[in-house]
């Protein structure tokens, strides 16, 4: 029963990892950009939520109304002003610029908020749980988190294949120059993709801030979890990413159950095993 509970918690945690991954794989899919600052942007969103909650005295979950548009705007501006200049055949500039961005965000947050870890309090919802029989209980907050992850992924899937902007994303991804010839403004499309990515980052940041303590230095680990979920699931497949996140979450939960020190290691090992045995991921769609 203890193990069943461990696996259940792992699955719910996997939803969060899938959301770390969704924003990352979205921009990689559209503009072949790997954003090394992705994890630090999640932490930035958490701090934006912190400031919002402190200034307005509202529930952290309600702060999404402000954090999501703020982060989306940051994303659009970041892409248009900085990241679009780095795109091209050479993969060095985007990697190094986003790496520099990661260091800038981390140290900027450190300067503004110190290294002390903080947490947002979402009130009674944090400790509520639903009994599902057999002595098992599911926390309401993890459940909300998982439901949001499924909703985000379903939403992205719908956006990509059913809407005009999704068509624009796919067109610029397949062939940027033809897309431009057909009247798309690639810079703008890329800006929108980054805005969408950071809107997801905002949701993840708020959930992370409510779930556990955070400080300016935890970004890179979030990037790595998201990246591992993407690779385990297989590039280009949204539902695969959800599965990848769940596998990672369950591996970590099982590792932690065996020995607290093996929590993160078990996740990395699951990733390395998938990479060794099935480098295209478990549910691949396109070859990266």
């Amino acid at each position: 029963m203890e193990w069943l509970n461990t696996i259940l918690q792992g699955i719910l945690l996997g939803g969060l990892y899938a959301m770390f991954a969704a924003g990352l794989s979205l921009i990689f899919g559209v503009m072949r950009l790997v954003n090394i600052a992705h994890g630090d942007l999640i932490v930035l969103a958490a701090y934006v939520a912190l400031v919002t909650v402190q200034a307005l005295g509202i529930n952290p979950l309600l702060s999404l109304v402000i954090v999501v548009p703020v982060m989306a705007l940051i994303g659009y501006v970041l892409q248009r002003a900085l990241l679009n200049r780095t795109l091209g055949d050479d993969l060095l500039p985007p990697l190094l610029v986003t790496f520099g961005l990661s260091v800038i965000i981390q140290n900027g947050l450190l300067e503004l908020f110190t290294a002390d870890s903080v947490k947002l309090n979402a009130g009674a919802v944090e400790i509520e749980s639903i009994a599902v029989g057999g002595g098992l209980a599911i926390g309401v907050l993890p459940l909300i988190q998982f439901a949001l992850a499924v909703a985000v992924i379903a939403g992205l899937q719908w956006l990509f294949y059913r809407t005009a902007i999704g068509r624009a994303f796919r067109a610029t991804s397949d062939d940027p120059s033809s897309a431009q010839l057909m009247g798309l403004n690639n810079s703008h499309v890329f800006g929108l993709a980054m805005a969408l990515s950071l809107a997801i980052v905002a949701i993840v940041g708020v959930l992370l801030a409510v779930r556990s303590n955070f400080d300016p230095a935890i970004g890179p680990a979030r990037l790595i979890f998201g990246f591992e979920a993407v690779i385990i699931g297989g590039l280009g497949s949204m539902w695969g990413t959800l599965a990848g996140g769940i596998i990672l979450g369950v591996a970590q939960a099982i590792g932690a159950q065996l020995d607290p020190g093996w929590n993160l290691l078990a996740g990395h090992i699951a990733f390395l095993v998938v990479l060794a045995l099935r480098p295209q991921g478990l549910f691949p769609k396109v070859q990266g």
Partner: protein
Amino acid sequence: MSDVRVRHASVSSWIGTTIVVLATVALAAAPWWAERADLRLLAEIYAYVALASLWNLLAGYAGLVSVGQQAYVGLGAYVLFGLAMLAGVHPLAAIPIAGFAAALVAVPVAALIFRLRGHYFAIGTWVVAEVFRLLAAQTSALDGGSGTSLPAAVVLSIASSRQMREFTIYWIALAQVVVILFAIVWLLRSRYGLALTAIRDNELGARSNGIDVVRIKYAVYVAVAFGTAMLGALIFLQKIRISPDTAFSVNDWTAFVIFITVIGGIGRIEGPIIGTVIFFLLRQTLADLGAIYLLILGVVAIAVMLWAPKGLWGLVADRFGWQVFPLQRRLVLKKR
């Protein structure tokens, strides 16, 4: 056909090489003219020139953008501490062993992370470094996460007097950077260097001209791991204290190294040297600023990447055609 030959040297490389040789001689004599604190600073500078030169070979020439070289700095350091403390190996003898151990580990690691294409390779290297860090934190024989210090007996075995110990470590640090720079110059002048330069300039073109790109990248990755681990071993032998967080620090061993290389000039052997000089000048003036200092470095590196992607030495080299080391290839007619 044999009427032509390749000439590597130029006027600037004669001048440059002469300056480098004279500077090396002067620096080798530093224990006689420098203060104790200066020696430590110089040894740190050598370590960064060497680390950045190796990263430059990896990212600038072979196109393997790693953000996880701290994996090998830390591995080398931990191998040295393990050998010296648990197996009684002389710490100086443990330095080359650390290099070989890292090269041995790099072979399967490369086989695994080379499966990640292009951009994702970078994050894959980071995962490897994290795994190494977590494993080091689990090593209870070396006090796991809290870290450990070298016992006095091990430290004394380097040399009995404190002064001689400091001199020994200083000279090894200088020897490491000289050997690494010399090896890189030699490599770049060889046919493999031609292949690497071709890969740097156009990987597809290099492949279509018959260069076995994967094999060369593999060899460079393993060789760089070898050198990086020996540097890491000496760095922590000098520090005497080790912990997983300092040995596998992404800021110290990757962020600084990348900024140094980018600012100095990536894909050029002179870049890391110029970059290190600028890095230490900035550090001496801005060190009091703490986190702001790293922030400024990040901004400078991004600005350089966007507006002068070849770095400061790239600007100089393009403007004046200078080279410090005899690396260029110019065909000249043989005199009959």
